[in-house]
């Protein structure tokens, strides 16, 4: 399996995505904003379409669109111009609609586009790996640095705001990290499924963990295991990697629910 360079690259990038997506997703799930990843993913779709239309790197345009979408959601939420779910819906539908229109103008509804939507390990390059290594290190470093403040915002946002924590900036930090994670992970898992990798490992970990810290580490572990197992199954069975990875993560949630149920009954 590892004779081919594309598989080595896919596993290396996949390992980073497997750890990073749930680590960022942890702070979204605990704030009951699990679906924000979907909203940002749809903004990223518009970015991919723009890249195809302008014939420039879709990863870069998706990155820009995802960050704009994420900041827009936070801005709308913070200003109370719209409730959280309405802000999400606005970005969600605007993103997908803009993507469809731009792709139609470009006349490029082709297989290449589907590789961004559903993931394709064949598209990963050494440049992508280098980008992911740098970004992964920066993102995990930022989370480690601000971990206590991010947890304070999760546990009691209003209390933290009254005590003087810069809640707006912390929320924007999480949203931007989510946007960058989505844009950079879309080649492996796909825009439509990356949000699942940010949420499902955290859901599974929450069932069996005993603290915030253990939930975070278990989430990253389950995410990593899901990606590695999913990529392996995808290679051997010749099935799409994104869907396979998410199905493994979903199976982890069911297993965690079973363990939790057993623990409660004893």
């Amino acid at each position: 399996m590892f004779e081919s360079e594309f598989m080595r690259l896919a596993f290396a990038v996949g390992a980073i995505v497997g750890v990073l997506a749930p680590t960022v997703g942890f702070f979204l799930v605990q704030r009951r904003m699990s679906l924000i990843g979907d909203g940002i993913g749809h903004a990223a779709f518009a970015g991919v379409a723009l890249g195809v239309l302008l014939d420039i790197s879709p990863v870069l345009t998706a990155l820009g669109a995802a960050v704009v979408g994420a900041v827009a959601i936070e801005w709308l939420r913070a200003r109370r111009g719209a409730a959280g779910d309405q802000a999400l819906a606005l970005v969600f539908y605007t993103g997908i609609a803009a993507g469809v229109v731009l792709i139609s103008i470009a006349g490029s509804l082709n297989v290449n586009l589907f590789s961004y939507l559903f993931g394709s390990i064949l598209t990963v390059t050494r440049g992508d790996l280098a980008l992911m290594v740098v970004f992964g290190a920066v993102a995990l470093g930022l989370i480690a640095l601000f971990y206590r403040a991010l947890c304070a915002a999760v546990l009691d946002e209003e209390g933290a705001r009254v005590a003087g924590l810069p809640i707006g900036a912390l929320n924007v930090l999480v949203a931007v990290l989510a946007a960058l994670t989505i844009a950079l992970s879309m080649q492996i898992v796909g825009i439509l499924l990356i949000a699942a990798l940010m949420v499902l490992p955290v859901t599974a970990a929450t069932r069996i963990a005993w603290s915030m810290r253990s939930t975070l580490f278990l989430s990253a572990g389950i995410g990593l295991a899901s990606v590695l197992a999913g990529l392996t199954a995808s290679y051997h069975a010749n099935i799409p990697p994104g869907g396979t990875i998410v199905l493994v993560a979903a199976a982890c949630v069911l297993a965690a629910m079973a363990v939790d149920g057993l623990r409660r009954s004893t």
Partner: protein
Amino acid sequence: MQLALELEDLAFRYERGELVLADVSMTVAPGEFVAIAGPNGGGKTTLLRIALGLERPTAGVARLYGEPAASFSRRRLLGYLPQRAQLGIEAPATVREVVSAGRVAASKLVGRMRARDRELVDEAIERVGLTSRAGAPIRTLSGGMQQRAFIAKALAGEPSLLALDEPTTGVDAESQDALGELLAHLHSELGVTILYVSHEFGAVEHHVQRLVLVRRSIIFDGPPHELAGMWHDPSHTHV
């Protein structure tokens, strides 16, 4: 002496036009234990949010320790327990993690906690009587214990002013009384100013020095016993 809180001719109206507060003026001196009570929808939570700088009044002025509440620069002086629905009670956090979160604003924002911060967290947990449950997940505790853990979180920041919004919601009667005793003890021991906002103030009835009744405007402001005949309920006090 600088007042802890000053509200002058406050009014608050929602964007859709509903008037919530009108002509509200009151002051709170440092070290006072004040219950702000009133019916649901009477404006007491809005009053508290304006006092803490979380909402801007439509008219009037709110000052904390002499500064405009909305731009108050010494926020580490404040400890706040919001309504239960806004707390991360379902988060997979231990009591110690919850209480440690209250130390972030008072210590350095980034990096690990210092030894002194850890000591203050342990002290706060001990003050609310949860030392033996410090490692327990918050979601496994009773409603009363959860509230005590979040009070410890507010205390960990060593506040001069502690504001609590409906702290007895979801707490059984026995734990409500224990909560009242705890607040009275904190008030006398630490000298912290306490603003206790609730539609139900039986838990602190015998401990507060002053009761403020709010129904759009302030309809009573004085010692609770002056109002006793009007509202007393042998089990709990509802307004």
